[in-house]
């Protein structure tokens, strides 16, 4: 009789610990709450020439397709690519797009964008707009930031796909601060 109760207790303790372990395992520091790490040499080399490489999980596939179809007029500049490179990068972006990955951030971005809409700018996704609503417009004009396109200026962990508030450091309004040299290839 004693043995059985001891065994039951042991089983109960083990299952509690295991469940606790499973719950905690998904939260490996910040990595579990971020976008999945992605690698693509041409995306890094070509797209990071003029801006930080925006993680594909920040926009749905239909947005990336629209961006990649309009490269000759990419936000006022010609960003044309040869056909093979364009297709390769496009495939990569679509594969890891917000509506193709299960990270919480991506799911919320996707859910906030109406089905018929394909915003070209991450900063125009309703979820992103809402997240930044408390920040005054003039903050984005600070010398160290410049515009809403410069995510990494405040999101110090953007390169790792982690956008939680704990990684945010908003630069002060000081003209003497040079803009951060965002990570990317030298030309």
């Amino acid at each position, binding site marked *: 009789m004693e043995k059985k109760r001891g065994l039951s207790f042991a089983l109960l303790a083990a299952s509690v610990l295991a469940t606790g372990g499973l719950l905690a395992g998904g939260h490996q520091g910040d990595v579990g709450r971020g976008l999945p790490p992605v690698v693509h040499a041409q995306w890094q080399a070509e797209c990071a*020439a003029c801006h*930080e490489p925006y993680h594909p999980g920040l926009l749905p596939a239909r947005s990336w397709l629209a961006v990649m179809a309009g490269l000759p007029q990419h936000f006022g500049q010609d960003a044309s690519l040869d056909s093979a490179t364009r297709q390769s990068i496009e495939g990569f972006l679509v594969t890891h797009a917000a509506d193709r990955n299960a990270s919480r951030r991506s799911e919320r971005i996707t859910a906030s964008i109406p089905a018929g809409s394909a915003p070209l700018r991450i900063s125009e996704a309703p979820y992103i707009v809402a997240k930044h609503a408390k920040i005054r417009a003039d903050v984005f004009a600070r010398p160290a930031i*410049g*515009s809403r396109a410069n995510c990494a200026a405040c999101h110090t962990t953007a390169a790792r796909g982690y956008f939680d508030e704990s990684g945010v450091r908003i630069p002060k309004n000081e003209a003497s601060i040079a*803009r951060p040299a965002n990570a990317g290839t030298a030309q």
Partner: protein
Amino acid sequence: MRTRDTLMLSLAACALALVAVAEAATPRSLLAGYDSEARKTEPAFTGFDPRRGEALFRHEAKKSDGTTASCTGCHTADPKQAGRARVTGKEIAPLAPIANAERFTDPARAERWFQRNCNDVLARPCSAQEKGDFLTYLLSVQ
């Protein structure tokens, strides 16, 4: 015996191919390329001029949306200095070979950026003359 000969020939061919690929271009070799192209396509070609190249570098084009497009817009007035991309502020390594040894060592890369940026500023491709003038100017920057 035959198989071994074929194998040796293949290896030799591979080695030669690798050597050919490994020899990266230089700004001078790119310039030579623009020179031969200009001789073929421009009957009045008399060589490159760094002053024309500088004029092209500093040219400001008024766009239909009221903005101004110029090489200096991103590369700044001094090609030895680091530049900044418009809107995003991303740093751009210096354009002048004297300040950046990687510049104009990859023909495909040079062509891609000429194609894009000439379209931005001139709304058309740059001619071999213009590319040669431009590179001659950049090489003259000390």
